[in-house]
């Protein structure tokens, strides 16, 4: 790991870039006479979808994601893009998706870390001699077919759409955090500003516009694959056909819809 990445004083180039970028956005907006809201709308107009009324979700679709662990290079761009796309607070302890690094030594217990969800890269290992193997595992909400979080929500503020995505109704959530306790994957967090439970939506707003989730969009090695299980020509179908698949914590009967290829025994 290069010094410029490791030094906490020097998160520099990217941070400044981001701030400048936002500055530009805010400066340019009044000039162009648009607001953030219409900005979002006009993107869809760019894609010729402004007038189209959104269909209600139906069982015809069943969205799922797959991750090929052999392809993941641990760049953390997915975790970064997720924070940007979904305006997730920058706190390293509120993440919708994150990348874990596993280091399996020849002897002893596996080491796992995920500093800032992997967004800033991974620190150098103090010792590389006795490593049997090492790899990265991206994690996110598994959008379980049998979701324990939905089961425990006392008011119906988190729910499963007909196309299989688990969402949170931020206008209805009471903030009891029972769903966070019930999630076996640590995929949920309490939004520090909105005071409601929050989690990955499979970028439901993007799927609705025909885009793939932000993490899939930016994955440089296509380690993440997203698609509709009910569509024969979907990349996810091909992925499931050609790989030996594992899902996380299947013994809990959550029936996850995030599938892993080439996952090690230690991944959990």
């Amino acid at each position, binding site marked *: 790991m290069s010094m410029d990445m490791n030094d906490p004083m020097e998160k520099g180039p990217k941070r400044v870039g*981001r701030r400048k970028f936002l500055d530009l956005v805010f400066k340019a907006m009044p000039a162009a006479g648009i607001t953030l809201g219409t900005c979002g*709308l006009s993107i*869809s107009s760019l894609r010729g979808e402004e007038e189209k009324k959104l269909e209600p979700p139906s069982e015809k679709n069943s969205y799922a994601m797959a991750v090929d662990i052999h392809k993941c290079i641990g760049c*953390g761009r997915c975790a970064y893009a997720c924070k940007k*796309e979904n305006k997730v607070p920058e706190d390293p302890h509120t993440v919708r998706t994150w990348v874990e690094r596993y280091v399996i030594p020849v002897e002893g217990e596996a080491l796992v870390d995920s500093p800032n969800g992997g967004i800033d890269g991974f620190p150098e290992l103090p010792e590389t001699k006795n490593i049997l193997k090492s790899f990265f595992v991206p994690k996110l909400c598994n959008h379980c077919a049998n979701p324990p979080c939905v089961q425990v929500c006392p008011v119906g503020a988190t729910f499963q759409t007909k196309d299989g995505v688990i969402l949170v109704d931020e206008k209805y959530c009471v903030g009891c955090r029972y769903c966070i306790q019930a999630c076996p994957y640590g995929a949920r967090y309490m939004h520090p500003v909105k005071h409601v439970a929050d989690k990955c939506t499979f970028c439901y707003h*993007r799927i609705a516009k025909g885009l793939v989730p932000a993490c899939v969009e930016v994955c440089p090695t296509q380690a993440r694959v997203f698609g509709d299980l009910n569509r024969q020509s979907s990349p996810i179908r091909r992925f499931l056909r050609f790989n030996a698949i594992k899902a996380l914590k299947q013994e809990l009967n959550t029936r996850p819809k995030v599938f892993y290829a080439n996952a090690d025994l230690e991944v959990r």
Partner: protein
Amino acid sequence: MSKGKVPHQLMVLSVIAVAVIAGFFVMRAYLTPKSFGKYGHYRADAIDDVRNLPVSYAGVNVCASCHEEVFQKKAKGFHRGVTCEVCHGPAAAHAEDNSIKPEAPRQRGGCPLCHNYNPARPTGFPQIITAEHNPGKPCMTCHNPHDPVPPTTPEDCGVCHRSIAAQKLVSKHSSVECTTCHQVPKQHFVNPRLNRVGKPTNNEACGNCHGSDVKTQPQVPKVETAKHAGRYLCWECHYPHSPENTP
């Protein structure tokens, strides 16, 4: 109070109970959101609340619709699978309004996120040790990120196969060339994943040095290849990039 008459207490409590229950149902009818229960036990409008959120990452097709030439160039190179917004950041605002410029990581910060050496990265993924690799120079001075060809065709396999090279370098096999054992197709340099490098398919490759009938230096361990291995290939038990120490 005469017999058979309902006790006064019970009357009073019944009235209160009816009032409380009726009050509850009135409150419930009044407070239940309109779209609640339309598709299931939730507010149906919440779905559109989520779906109407603004998009920040425009998606590669939107980028390509204006930057056709970059797209074409990139499509032929190693970075063809790397979408624009991986490096340039969310660009939906830029797609909407050209005066908003997306990020362009021209310094050394960006590329090492993927290409800095990390043993956890899959083998074959091109990696450098950033601290040693032309320190201080922005990556762009030598590499074009839209068509990142190494400045010279790598003479050294270690450019991509970093962890293997690192292991081999400190092993007994440090002087053995990669091509001694591996057959490398020409196309492997251009399309590595589709043109895999071959592994030895018989034990002659190792036997050339380690066979008991071969005259190599005496410190090279010798075995009778045919008898020693049985039905296995040498590399199915020994790891040639870092062979174990023999007594």
